[in-house]
């Protein structure tokens, strides 16, 4: 990613004694630094689809007013993640509602898997995402953050704004649903 050195220092700087660390961050700088990360979260929570780009922009639109008040890179990343999870939950709930009542067309995940996928990976991911589409959004988000995004239970709890025990319960429920379909293949 072609990010200027100045932007990197502003956004990625870890030293709290660095005076530039306290400088207000611009939306453009934050977007350049963290949009790929937010896109990754979006893809893993919503599934690979053409919604992801709009999702990324929605996250930054919601975050823009508060960005100037964020002082460190770590805080910004965490804050963007929380906004992303909240937005994803809202989108997933809306999607399930539309699918239940308006018969929204299902996404053909086999056609939207990344171009770098092997056929085996593409087919497996397509199955997993179809199963995830049938889960309650909270279970899907907890499992996706834990498994696809590799977050620790405590971090998932923070992002989902619930207790670690609740996260474990949701992840276990999602795992059971996946195992039931995929079985021992």
């Amino acid at each position, binding site marked *: 990613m072609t990010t200027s050195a100045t932007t990197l220092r502003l956004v990625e700087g870890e030293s709290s004694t660095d005076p530039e660390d306290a400088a207000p961050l611009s939306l453009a700088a934050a977007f350049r630094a963290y949009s790929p990360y937010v896109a990754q979260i979006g893809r893993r929570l919503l599934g690979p689809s053409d919604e992801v780009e709009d999702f990324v922009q929605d996250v930054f639109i919601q975050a823009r007013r508060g960005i100037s008040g964020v002082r460190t890179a770590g805080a910004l990343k965490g804050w963007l993640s929380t906004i992303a999870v909240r937005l994803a939950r809202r989108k997933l709930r809306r999607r399930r509602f539309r699918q239940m009542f308006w018969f929204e067309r299902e996404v053909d995940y086999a056609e939207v898997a990344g171009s770098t996928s092997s056929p085996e990976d593409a087919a497996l991911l397509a199955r997993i995402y179809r199963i995830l589409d049938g889960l309650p959004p909270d279970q899907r988000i907890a499992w996706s953050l834990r498994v*696809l995004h590799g977050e620790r239970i405590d971090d998932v709890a923070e992002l989902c704004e619930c207790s670690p025990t609740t996260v474990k319960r949701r992840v276990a429920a999602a795992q059971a649903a996946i195992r039931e379909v995929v079985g021992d293949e």
Partner: protein
Amino acid sequence: MNELELTVRQAEENADPAWDGARVEASLARLERRIRRRVVIRRTALISAPVLVALGVLVWTSIGGPSGASQEAQGVEGRTAQRETQETRTVESPRTLQLADGSTATPEDEESEVVAARVTDRDVTVRLTRGGARFEVQRNHDRSFRVDAGLVSVVVMGTSFSVRRIGPAVEVQVFEGQVRVEWEGGSQTLWAGGRNVYPPPALTEATEELEAAPEQQPTSASTRRNLDWRTLAERGDYDDARDALEGQTVRDDMDDLLLAADVMRYSRQPGRAAEYLERAIDVDPSDRRAPLAHFTLGRIFLHQLNRPRDAARAFARCQALAPSGSLAEDALAREVEAWHRAGERRLARERAIRYEQNYPNGPRLPHVRRLGGLD
């Protein structure tokens, strides 16, 4: 995390399309435009609201009904009314799907598309969503390989064939081995050299016979020995067909010789397979299946008998017989590989240049360039 989850996570990491610098900048530009539009809408609403309210009151009082409108600012989740067009992507050459066992599915052009719908240890299903594709399937008795193309499915076991969608119909052409073509109400086995369009306009007698025939039951060893080698081969019992061929002479008939070659290939007798193919070519050099025979011979020489020079010549003859045929591109690519393996760098380079000129978007171009020393 269990093993499945580890596999899924790895698959997701492999599949995740990276947001490179260009994409970030393009998305940022769209974001800034969206934000500017939202600001304009809000300011417009702020300025025009009193005017609109007044207008509304006026209309209300004049016609006695609700009227007027006020613009609403879009919510956070609202999409822009006019979606920006995506940046133009460079048209990519057809992408080949390659499975771990070496089976491949190559779209025939940029408009064609083939996707993997299901891949397990027991079965593979590939979907041809549009256009046509060439399939090379590794033989595996424990796993079925299926191509779904709309109304028609092609079930295969160790073959090379192509499938092309033509409107609601599907054209299937088999280069090696056999496939079973299925459609609602019918099915048919198609052999090497065969080419047909499905579903057929009316059930043929052959299809009716196939449908009426009782399902074949496993036969005892003594029964198998008494069966003709052709029958055994058509059933896919290649080892038994090979045994049945012992001491027998295959007549100088193109069909029989090609079938005998298949028997030997699939029962791991490449030398004898090559002999039958050479005989087939001698019997009728102008037969429409001669390019296929040369192509198959080239593959046997190259991959099983370690005779790359003979392989290169066989691939060259395949191209000479059918320069515009469906095997020509593949044959030229393999000829490059054969000359490369034979240590003939000049010839490999010349053929690679020819490939690049004739097939600038060919699916094997990167491979050909590397073997031909063009990189």
